[in-house]
């Protein structure tokens, strides 16, 4: 039974976000990925399954090993991501400005 997983549900989990970061630049086997976490191997496998189901990760067979890599198609074009990036910094800077407007020098 393969439920179609929601991308947002998938990246809501910090471990799954860490997995995406890990394989962002090169493909890795499940074992190599699991070695980066304290969590039990079956838990990591479950995360990999969810990420694969929602197509954020792709599996690639190479000999006896299965490698996981980022599904570039699912990840949007760079231009689409400048706006979210800008929003993150804009939020941070708005907060900075608000904090410093109320800044009282320490005595």
């Amino acid at each position, binding site marked *: 039974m393969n439920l179609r997983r929601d*991308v*947002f549900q998938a*990246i*809501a989990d*910090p471990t799954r*976000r*860490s997995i*995406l*970061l*890990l394989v*962002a*630049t*090169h493909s890795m086997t499940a074992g190599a990925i699991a070695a*980066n976490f304290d969590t039990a191997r079956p838990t990591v496998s479950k995360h990999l399954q969810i990420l694969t189901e929602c197509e954020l990760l792709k599996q690639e067979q190479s000999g006896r090993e299965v490698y996981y890599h980022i599904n570039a198609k699912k*990840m*949007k074009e*760079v231009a*689409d*991501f*400048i*706006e*979210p*990036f*800008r*929003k*993150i*910094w*804009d939020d*941070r*800077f*708005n*907060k*900075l*400005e608000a*904090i*410093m*407007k109320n*800044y009282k020098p320490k005595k």
Partner: protein
Amino acid sequence: MEYKTQVRAGEGQQDILITRVFELPVELLFKAHTEADIVAQWMNTKVLQLENKRHGSWQYETSDPQGNVVFRANGVFHEFEPPAKITRTFEMENTPFPVQLEFLTFTALTDETSQLDMQIIFKSAAFRDQMLKMPFAYGLNMAHNKLEALLRKN
């Protein structure tokens, strides 16, 4: 709502330019980058170390509501010249992303306004693009619903 922050990431380039004008004197804008408790507030992270001097180091750590560390980054200051300039490295721990180089320039526009220009240089154009494609890499601390709203808009 119009964003006050501009971001430029030229096609095929390996850097990102972030520019923002603040309604703050330049000294206060600079101070917001040097006092650990203030940095912690607007960066929404724990500040483990912040040695404000040339060759000093910094380290941030962010945990999720359950207390698991989800993000840790560190770096070294190469130039530290109040209230005008900070040059530092940025390394995300436990990820394969190479170290980034960041140039922060603080400029007084009037007595009450100032501008911050931030240039982030990546090891390659490919790494820069990879990083941009994962906004959550910069906002791991963001609440899920906030992140979701952000992504749905695109």
